[in-house]
């Protein structure tokens, strides 16, 4: 009655979000009094499996079979469903990344299983495991139970610490994958990834975000300079993405990325409900906005009412001076 974590690979590398998801798998397995396995599919999975074997899993299963060499929800969900049925796993989880969100509901559909999205914690209740998850842009925490024999869930990576190596050695083995590559109705074509030297938004210790107040490309450049001075990731509010000033995958909020860095600096962001949902779990929030009535100040630990075009250059200078000393 073990449980299964589906790890995530891209272009031959295990993605970071897998590590907090391993912690979630470990917690859930402990509550259920069972152990957890990890499944890793895609090119480079064999080498990736070696990286995952000392995180506390009982087994790490991998496959580089043709049908699953590149990610498609169709092939990966089918391969995972076959494995779940064969091994009798009672719960399957993945990180709530764009891949996890694409894959897991399809897998739940194939398994006729109930699903919880974006779990942030687990409790033992009268009816078995109770999953905690945010709803209504984080303004409510729901307690959810699943009524099917198999439970499917995605877990919010910011709610769990990244698993670290050292917890025993898992048995590593090739997973049986019998998905017919020719029978699939979907085909991966290519990635068109944004190349950036900055840290990933969901992994960064410091995030600097641009809102409507930055106005144009020049304003964005200023916020980028602040991010670089701090070694921070760059984020954006939906308004900035809608304007086409920054790409969608930098959008912080209810329908974009959920971040929880040590320090979040919101520049020219009003603080709409949808944006706050994506960053309110940051340890320290700084808001710089010239409108003192802006709702962002209600969640900010430190609020500076000032024109960002005056304040941010000064802040960059100060940060650079502090870093140099």
């Amino acid at each position, binding site marked *: 009655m073990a449980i299964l974590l589906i790890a995530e690979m891209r272009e031959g590398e295990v993605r970071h979000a897998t590590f907090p998801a391993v912690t979630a798998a470990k917690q859930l397995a402990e509550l259920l009094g069972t152990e957890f396995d990890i499944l890793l599919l895609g090119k480079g999975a064999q080498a990736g499996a070696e990286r995952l074997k000392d995180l506390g899993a009982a087994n790490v299963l991998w496959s580089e079979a043709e049908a699953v060499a590149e990610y498609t929800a169709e092939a990966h969900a089918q391969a995972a469903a076959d494995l779940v049925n064969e091994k009798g796993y009672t719960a399957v989880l993945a990180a709530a990344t764009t891949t996890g*969100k694409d894959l897991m509901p399809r897998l739940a559909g194939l398994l006729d299983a*109930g*699903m919880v999205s974006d779990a942030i914690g687990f409790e033992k209740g009268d009816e078995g495991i109770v999953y905690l998850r945010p709803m209504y842009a984080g303004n409510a925490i729901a307690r959810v139970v699943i009524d099917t024999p198999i439970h499917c869930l995605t877990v919010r990576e910011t709610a769990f610490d990244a698993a670290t190596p050292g917890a025993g050695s898992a048995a590593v083995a090739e997973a049986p994958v019998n998905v017919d590559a020719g029978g699939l109705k979907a085909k991966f*074509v290519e990635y068109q*990834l944004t190349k950036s030297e900055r840290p990933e938004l969901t992994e960064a210790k*410091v995030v600097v975000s641009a809102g409507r107040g930055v106005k144009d490309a020049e304003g964005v450049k200023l916020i980028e300079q602040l991010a670089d001075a701090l070694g921070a990731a760059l984020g954006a509010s939906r308004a900035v993405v809608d304007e086409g000033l920054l790409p*969608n995958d930098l959008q912080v909020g209810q329908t974009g990325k959920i971040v929880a860095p040590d320090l979040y600096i919101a520049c020219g962001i009003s603080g709409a*409900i949808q944006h706050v949902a994506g960053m309110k779990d940051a340890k320290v929030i700084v808001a710089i906005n010239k409108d003192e009535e802006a709702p962002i100040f209600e969640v900010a630990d*430190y609020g500076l009412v000032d024109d960002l075009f005056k304040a941010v250059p000064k802040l960059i200078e100060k940060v650079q001076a502090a870093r140099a000393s």
Partner: protein
Amino acid sequence: MKIMVPVRRVPNPDVKVRLKKDGTGIETEGVNFLVNPFDEYAIEEAVRITEKSGGEVFLVSIGGPENEETLRAGLALGAHRAYLVDLGGECYESSGIADILAAVFKQENPDLVILGKQSVDTDNNQAAQMLAAKLGLAQACFAYKVELQDGKAVVQREIDGGLEVKEVELPAVITADLRLNQPRYASLPAIMKAKKKEVKKVTPADLGAEPKNRARVLGLSEPPPRKAGQKVASVDELVDKLVNEAKVL
């Protein structure tokens, strides 16, 4: 081309919800309900396809009689007709909704299903993928751009770190992300015309659907509030506090 667009009725996402004291749900009194914003992108995309190459767009909304308002708003954006699936007071989570949508699909056999990537109330982001799995169709979630070719769609998808290009055989299920298009505003003549469009009222039984819930919300509670912050007067004071008080610089 025949395109099915499921639409959901959601509380206005720009207003903070209030929870009922007993935690069984949210207060709905005085709350205005709208078409789920992501579904507007889905309607717009479907309407643009039929405007360009012909065909029709039909909407499906699942809930109660009040969903007619949601459907009329969608019809005013250019959809041609609609189904209102009346649950008679029952309530279903994503997998039950997918059961019903699968039954509508089987009645209509559309060439394409487009819907919003998630509803902004429950934020589940599940129904579309579950529907595709139940029907054995391909899926292309979080669409940034959709290009229809002979019997297939080439979709650029929003993923962590950029875009992914995927080809799916039709019929397929596509979910709309926010850069897919800029939804139009309904004109007054379009709103008038929408009042006359067909809204077919059915029950799950009429569709031959046997929806079931596979997950249950036991209750809702308020998240822990953030402690009150402070205003700083200058950049100097801000940096000083970040270094010496918060110790994050």
